[in-house]
């Protein structure tokens, strides 16, 4: 059994390195090349790109004007796919009156019997139509992976161009070098190409990913 000191000593012997430059890199975390397509000109362009990329990855999208409208939008999604009017959520938000849409919600970590999970995204990344979700007491990770259907609420103003902007937003909220237990980048529903290199949707994670874009009366176009 080793405590790693011997391994680290071998590594140190192999390469001299520059500890100062290494520490500086860790502290400054400079970014590399950000592709031009990941730098949309304005929020409207970011929204358009997010939509395009998320759809290309197999997600569906709908818009809601306020949190109050979310239950109806979810009910519509469930109805369209013939799903029971039941929902697993991470927390109860008084601004979202589930009962008005005749939805039965259960709070907490997801369970095997759950058909549909509802979550809120921390950010949306336009570059690839990726949702960024973070774990926490009100945002259990299991909701993102266990139920067959995943409905995610994303505020339009939380859409950023590239991954780097999302990291900076995370650092601003959680502190530098501090991560939530789980950060999930989710791009479209689950899939596999393990059989004859042909894509099949719905491997182990959700078969459907439905994104509700929340505008909350902002001035973003699109």
């Amino acid at each position, binding site marked *: *059994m*080793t405590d790693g000191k*011997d*391994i*680290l000593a*071998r*590594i140190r012997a*192999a*390469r001299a*390195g*520059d500890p100062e430059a*290494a*520490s500086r*890199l*860790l502290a400054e*975390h400079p*970014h*590399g090349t950000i*592709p*031009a*397509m990941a730098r949309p000109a304005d929020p409207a362009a970011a929204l358009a790109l997010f939509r395009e990329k998320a759809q290309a*990855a197999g997600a569906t999208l709908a818009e809601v004007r306020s949190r109050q409208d979310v239950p109806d939008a979810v009910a519509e999604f469930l109805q369209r796919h013939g799903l029971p009017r039941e929902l697993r959520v991470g927390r109860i938000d008084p601004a979202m009156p589930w009962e008005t849409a005749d939805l039965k919600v259960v709070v*907490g970590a997801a369970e095997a019997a759950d058909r549909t999970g509802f979550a809120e995204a921390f950010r949306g990344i336009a570059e*690839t139509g990726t949702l960024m979700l973070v774990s*926490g*007491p009100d945002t*259990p*990770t299991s909701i993102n*992976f*266990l139920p067959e259907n995943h409905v995610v609420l994303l505020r339009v103003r939380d859409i950023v161009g590239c*991954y*780097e902007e999302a*990291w900076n937003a995370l650092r601003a909220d959680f502190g530098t*070098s*501090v*991560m*939530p*237990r*789980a*950060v*999930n*980048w*989710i*791009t479209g*529903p*689950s*899939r*596999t*190409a*393990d*059989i*004859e*290199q*042909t894509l*099949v949707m*719905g*491997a*182990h*994670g*959700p078969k459907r990913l439905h994104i509700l874009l929340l505008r909350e009366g902002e001035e973003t176009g699109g």
Partner: protein
Amino acid sequence: MSGFRDRARTALADPLLQKALRNVPRGFIAKRAKAKAALPEFEQLREEASALKAFTLDNLDTFLATFVERAQTSGAKVHFASNTEEANRIVIDILKKAGVHLVAKGKSMISEETELNTALQRAGMEMVETDLGEYIIQLRDEKPSHIVAPAIHLSRREIEPAFRQAHTELPSDRQLVEKEDFVAEARSILREKFRTADAGITGANLLIAETGSTVLVTNEGNGDLSSTLPRIHVVLASIEKVVPTLEDATTILRLLARSATGQEITSYTSFFTGPRRPGDVDGPEEMHIVLLDNGRSEILAGPFSDILKCIRCGACLNHCPVFGAVGGHAYGGVYPGPMGEVLAPALHGIGKVSDIVDACTMCGRCAEVCPMGIPLPSLIRRWRMEAFRQAQVSPVQRLGLKVWAWLARHPHLYALAMRIAMPLLKFALRWKELLRRIPGLSAWMAERELPPPQGRTFTAMWKAARRKRP
């Protein structure tokens, strides 16, 4: 021992394997080309990724120590393993201490390297692979033939009997025809395993020093279920997987999926940092990270250290004409294709795997597509030199190489020999069919086309052309 040549011959004669391998060009190769073309900054990112990984390897002690410290701060337990036996022992100790019966496993090449599955079995634990490709080969009691697509060598015809034999609880007249049928069946079977597993074991595509996080890249979501639902999460990773910051991880992630499957990004990229936090309602109670060296700290000091930049995208396998002809099993080890030809001898010693470094035509496609800029053909050539130096080459081949080397150092004699040999060869090749029957030549000629030489030697033509110039 059965060598690469024997296994390659078997592979070439296997019609089902040949059919499965024919999917690679229109699959991975075409998709990667499309993804690369859609990202004008691809080459620039490639240079940056290669440089950042070079800097990381130069300072691996700092970054690894920082990773360990920050992972521990987040509550993860970090274990170092010098070799594969140690790694397996550490994992089994963790599982035994926690009273684990059933393990849900995500895809991990390091677990293939340590042969963890066999070790778990011996320890009396039930382990189920949850990546669909890995699950299929587990049912068939095989090894993966590709580092990204483990069951790439199989077609539905071969998967069907394995499913029917294993899933006896399902109605025997069920349909298993379409790919969707197989995916749905595996999903339903594995759901129950996810639900009841006490521990999840996954690999890591990257380790981030800045935050102490492990990164997992998947399409299926099996890795996320394996690391979220069970009460223990064990991450197996080798020490060179570390990158300095979230931004550095991002640069590499922009290249990884594009190079591997041609996607811009996979469905799921997950960053795990420690176990369940106060107030959390899910996530593992314990998170363990097992860091495997297994000779890498020595590779770091030697001439093959560039292979430690590898991010296991599989692009070099997909684009290799030899891999495309014989598949991954012919290489006889965990890591096939060009990256395997460099890594396997570095891990096991050239003496044990000297024949796989011959599985290369020096065409250079692997180096062209490698997102980390690893000079694979040069490294393979270097291993050939090493094999020659260590007398791992057969006496006949050795003699041939020596004669050729001597001749090549004496240009006048070389030119003379060529002038004599060429017309003779041209003459002899008129009776190609006859030549095929000569013992010793027959095997060689069966798999090769030897075109008769046309006209004069290259050097003769070169000289003539120079004379013409004023």
